[in-house]
């Protein structure tokens, strides 16, 4: 088939200008110009001219059948997707061509040619490798390469039968690894025994299904072994919260909202793919967690999300990055690009963009949440009935992400990056957007009996789960393929994104098909639900899978895990207390410019925060709309005042000192953020996301302590966990070196408020008002703080907000004060302490604050300002307010007042110790992150 190429050059290329400036800022000063030429590769019997209006706008784009770059003026690096990967734009080019009547176009690809004027070839390639592409999914195309076809092509392997009979333990282990099953020996033995019992060897497809279903990623073997899942679900059952609709079992958790609606929450990590291919990994992180919302009940609609990235410090020198790991700056910048690439077209407001660092995140943390909305009557799935159609909808199935479930359950090594490249893919948000629009329509037409997303484990996992109680028979030949060389087990295991599985009553099938056609969503009849109690599949006339559901779901051996109390080497802090004005200035600079406290708007402003028209308070607010709010409030029923409030707490430092206390603090921090804004903690639920190193006795010990801490605490405060996810694979290994992630727990809240207009935000409201710190100050405890980290220290003690009844008491008082409108601004203390809150409130209001530290003679004034008193809040109240009456039941102290000048001032015994303008401080605050990403 003929292959045509169309080279297009923009006369006004902002992207090229932006890269040029970026590279020059990053030290490539010899680079005098940068050009980007886009090449369309078109396969088929076509008239290229017909397609030109589609491929270029002649107002600013020039097309040519040959390159328009002057090859003599500088080296050209051409970057294309690898042949096995379908370009994101391919389906759109095909659709557009067909609309123009050019039906001869069979396939299309895109490549980009970067010309580096002023640099030599080697340097150009080095820059390209560092910033412009990821070798896992993309490649540098050789200009002399001959192309016979653009299509990913090939013939499938036949289905193989694999007998485990007579293999010894070593052989079983070796086979498991060679096949990328990553199944532990105990599982291999169970499969071996199963073969003996039923008297027939398994097909490759069957073993692949078993390995995937029993992987830690899908079966949570680590957590089950430690009894952790049960611990959390039992805590939630004990609370028996009246608002809770759905917990843990479904793809997300849901609580009652207002007027017959339910709101949902789900958080999911995608750490492994994001570490080796951040763009694809982070894009599909969002795609996956959004599908969890779409797959909740009979199909919820996503109304908000988060992106939370933990990496090593992006400012690390190149040679300080462990070999086999990507540079953290690349991970951060690529993740930002990926989040915008996926969530903006999905039309889902980004509510909490959060970036954190820790030297342990060599295998990065890539967490995303999705919040959803669904009518109460559709919030619970029905069980599929025998005869129901299993309808697969969305994109085609390709070689993408095969073995994602098993690989992501293991640790990461330098070798993994090369070996498991197929486990990463590029998402296509437009495909997901299509069915996101169609699913509520299908649901409201009562077409859906049950729905779930295809994520880890692909068809195998989704069909296996959905048909667990009945049985399901699949016809793999019905699956539309991107890649004709896929064999049966690959079709079953493929983790191609943007697919959902629906159980449709047969009588509703034609109606469902009409709706899907109208919304331009692809679909196929994958099979039907049966009463056999088996997972069955046929392919090319052969029965390739015939597994009993009870074996699949109940036979997985759970290895016991040893536990041992870890020995922590912790040292007390040794930080000089600032005395002079200059030392105070330095201290503020350290904290405000710290990565965890700094302005991250350079990421946040690249994500749509107001789409859907539901946003009442987005991630940025204040008079200038640039102040971090640390809360998000959405009014999901358009035109109604009811609000969904969400918050997140995550701290990679605290876990080094005391994981269990860290876990409890995260719950307190997340809830307090919402309560100070005006939410009632009794109308709230929680979502937990754990990220911990590969399990060892000491890790298991900590993990158990963390889970017990939050389970017990949730019961004590009556706020239930309704959804969560664990990843126990946070260990990076290379060159004999092991790097563990810090014990990480992200806690997110979802709550409801009756009126979004009553939400109180952080920015100061009026000069003359008083500032009160409500809660216990403990200025001597700076362990785990940003301030300590800025000295390269961690410390040995975390702040303790005290007994549970004190914590609840404070929330009760706050809620009461909010109801009575007694405070004008408020913020929960977290990283950066009081100091960061004062700065942000000033920045967002163009007012200032004067702080009186006279009362702290006996303690450290820096501890007072930078201590992270989780659970405490800073409130702005009227100077006339009778504090002792309002706050009689809780510790409180007036710490200063709001002033007209936008500046921060510290006073001790009537003397100004230090003062600086907010705009000057903002320079430090806004520089750190911008320098990393721009």
């Amino acid at each position: 088939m003929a292959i045509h190429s169309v080279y297009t050059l923009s006369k006004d290329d902002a992207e090229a200008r932006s890269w040029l400036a970026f590279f020059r800022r990053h030290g490539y000063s010899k680079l005098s110009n940068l050009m980007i030429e886009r090449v369309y590769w078109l396969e088929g019997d076509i008239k290229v001219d017909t397609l030109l209006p589609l491929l270029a706008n002649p107002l600013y784009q020039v097309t040519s059948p040959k390159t328009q770059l002057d090859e003599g003026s500088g080296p050209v690096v051409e970057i294309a997707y690898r042949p096995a990967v379908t370009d994101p734009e391919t389906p759109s080019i095909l659709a557009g061509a067909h609309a123009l009547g050019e039906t001869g176009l069979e396939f299309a690809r895109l490549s980009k040619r970067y010309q580096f004027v002023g640099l030599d070839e080697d340097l150009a390639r080095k820059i390209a490798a560092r910033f412009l592409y990821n070798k896992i999914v993309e490649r540098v195309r050789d200009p002399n390469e001959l192309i016979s076809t653009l299509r990913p092509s090939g013939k499938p392997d036949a289905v193989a039968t694999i007998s485990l009979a007579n293999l010894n333990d070593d052989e079983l282990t070796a086979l498991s690894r060679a096949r990328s099953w990553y199944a532990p020996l105990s599982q291999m033995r169970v499969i071996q025994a199963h073969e003996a019992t039923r008297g027939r060897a398994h097909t490759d497809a069957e073993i692949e299904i078993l390995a995937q279903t029993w992987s830690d990623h899908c079966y949570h073997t680590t957590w089950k072994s430690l009894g952790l899942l049960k611990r959390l679900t039992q805590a939630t059952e004990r609370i028996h919260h009246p608002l809770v609709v759905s917990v843990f079992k479904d793809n997300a958790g849901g609580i009652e909202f207002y007027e017959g609606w339910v709101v949902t929450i789900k958080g999911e990590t995608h750490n492994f793919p994001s570490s080796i291919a951040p763009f694809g990994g982070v894009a599909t992180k969002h795609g996956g967690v959004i599908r969890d919302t779409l797959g909740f009940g009979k199909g919820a609609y996503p109304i908000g999300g988060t992106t939370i990235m933990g990496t090593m410090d992006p400012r690390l020198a190149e040679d300080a990055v462990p070999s086999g790991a990507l540079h953290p700056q690349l991970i951060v910048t690529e993740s930002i690009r990926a989040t915008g690439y996926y969530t903006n077209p999905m039309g889902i407001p980004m509510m909490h963009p959060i970036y954190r660092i820790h030297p342990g995140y060599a295998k990065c943390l890539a967490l995303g949440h999705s919040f959803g909305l669904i009518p109460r009557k559709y919030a619970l799935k029905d069980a599929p009935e025998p005869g129901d159609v299993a309808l697969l909808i969305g994109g085609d199935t390709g070689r993408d992400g095969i073995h994602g479930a098993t690989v992501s359950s293991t640790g990461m090594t330098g070798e993994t990056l090369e070996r498991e490249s197929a486990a990463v893919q590029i998402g296509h948000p437009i495909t997901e957007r299509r069915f996101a629009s169609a699913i509520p329509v299908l649901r409201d037409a009562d077409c859906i009996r049950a729905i779930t997303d295809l994520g880890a484990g692909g068809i195998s996992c989704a069909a296996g789960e959905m048909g667990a109680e009945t049985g399901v028979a699949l016809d793999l030949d019905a699956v539309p393929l991107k890649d004709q060389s896929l064999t049966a087990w690959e079709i079953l295991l493929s983790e191609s994104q943007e697919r959902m599985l629906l159980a449709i009553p047969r009588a509703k099938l034609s109606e469902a098909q009409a709706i899907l056609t109208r919304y331009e969503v692809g679909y196929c009849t994958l099979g039907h639900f049966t009463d056999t109690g088996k997972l069955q599949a046929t392919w090319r006339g052969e029965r390739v899978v015939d597994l009993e559901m009870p074996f699949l779901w109940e036979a997985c051996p759970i290895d016991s895990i040893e536990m041992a109390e870890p020995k922590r080497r912790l040292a007390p802090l040794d930080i000089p207390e600032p005395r002079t004005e200059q030392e105070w200035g330095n201290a503020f600079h350290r904290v405000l410019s710290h990565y965890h406290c700094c302005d991250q708007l350079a990421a946040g402003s690249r994500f749509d925060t107001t789409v859907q028209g539901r946003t009442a308070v987005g991630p940025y607010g204040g008079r200038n709309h640039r102040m971090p709010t640390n809360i998000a409030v959405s009014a999901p029923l358009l035109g109604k005042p009811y609000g969904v409030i969400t918050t997140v707490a995550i701290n990679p430092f605290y876990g080094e000192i005391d994981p269990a206390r860290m876990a409890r603090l995260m719950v307190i921090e997340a809830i307090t953020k919402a309560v100070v804004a005006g939410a009632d903690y009794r109308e709230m639920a929680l979502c937990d996301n754990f990220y911990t190193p590969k399990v060892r006795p000491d890790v298991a010990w900590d993990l158990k302590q963390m889970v017990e801490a939050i389970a017990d605490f949730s019961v004590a405060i009556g706020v239930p966990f309704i959804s969560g996810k664990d990843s126990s694979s946070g260990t990076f290994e290379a060159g004999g070196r092991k790097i563990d992630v810090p014990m990480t727990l992200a806690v997110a809240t979802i709550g409801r408020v009756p009126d979004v207009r009553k939400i109180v935000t952080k920015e100061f409201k009026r000069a003359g008002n008083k500032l009160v710190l409500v809660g216990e100050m403990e200025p001597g405890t700076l362990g785990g703080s940003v301030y300590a980290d800025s000295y390269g220290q961690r410390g040995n003690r975390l702040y303790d907000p005290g007994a549970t009844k004190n914590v609840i008491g404070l929330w009760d008082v706050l809620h009461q004060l909010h109801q009575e409108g007694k405070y004008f601004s408020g913020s929960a203390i977290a990283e950066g302490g009081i100091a960061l809150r004062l700065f942000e409130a000033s920045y967002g209001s163009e007012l200032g604050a004067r702080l009186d530290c006279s009362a702290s003679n006996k303690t450290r004034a820096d501890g007072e300002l930078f201590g992270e008193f989780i659970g405490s809040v800073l409130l702005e109240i009227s100077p006339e307010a009778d504090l002792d009456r309002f706050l009689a039941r809780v510790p409180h102290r007036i710490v200063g007042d709001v002033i007209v000048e936008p500046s921060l001032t510290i006073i001790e015994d009537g003397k100004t110790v230090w003062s600086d303008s907010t705009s000057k401080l903002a320079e430090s605050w806004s520089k750190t992150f911008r320098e990393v990403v721009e």
Partner: protein
Amino acid sequence: MSSPVTAILYAPGTNCEEETAAALELAGGKSELVLLRDLLDGRTRLSEYQAAIIPGGFSYGDHLGAGRIFGTLLVAQLRDQLMGFLGAQKPLLGICNGFQVLAEAGVLPHRSPGQRTMALLENQSAKFEDRKIHLVVSAERSVWTQGLEGRVLSMPTAHGEGRPLFCETSGPNSARVVLRFAGAGGKAAAKYPDNPNGAPGGVAGITDDTGMVLGLMPHPERASLPSHYSQDGLHIFKNLVRWLAQS
């Protein structure tokens, strides 16, 4: 006569249709969500509606250029209906991606379907820009901004490609500029971030020669409901409702 209905015309990838309908409803108008596919398959026709709004989003994934595939489909397969709609002097609004569609279809700035005379280029920053901005309304005649002349409006903007380029023969002076990015004081803004995309002269919205068609990059529907930080955008929808009631 039954009350006039506005078509909210959208395609796969459009993602602002519901809030646009909600804003119009609050302004007292009546709307119907119409998929481009419904027109292509003949389930309905543009002539059934008295006005149309193409909302924001990423129609067809923004692939090949924002608004290009939607625009191509409009002029390649629905040209007669489009010409009929324009010829009947019915109000037409393109918001963000809808503006990009109207530019790619050649409807703006000079009603020349199939002939592009403007483009909305990638933002000067080469980034998607999500901001709350100010707009100042010019004295240019438009059914959508009547009575707002000289006013400063606050509303969100969120796009990656919004920097207008006009064909040399039309020239920046001949495009009828209705809205300009401005500082809080109402002075047209040339500089980032008040001007988030680098539009020459701060051009944020233009009308055609008749004043019936408006294309703008910012999102009035996201500054319309009582839960929004501003309700300035509601004026634009109220103007439509008023105009439909009068005609």
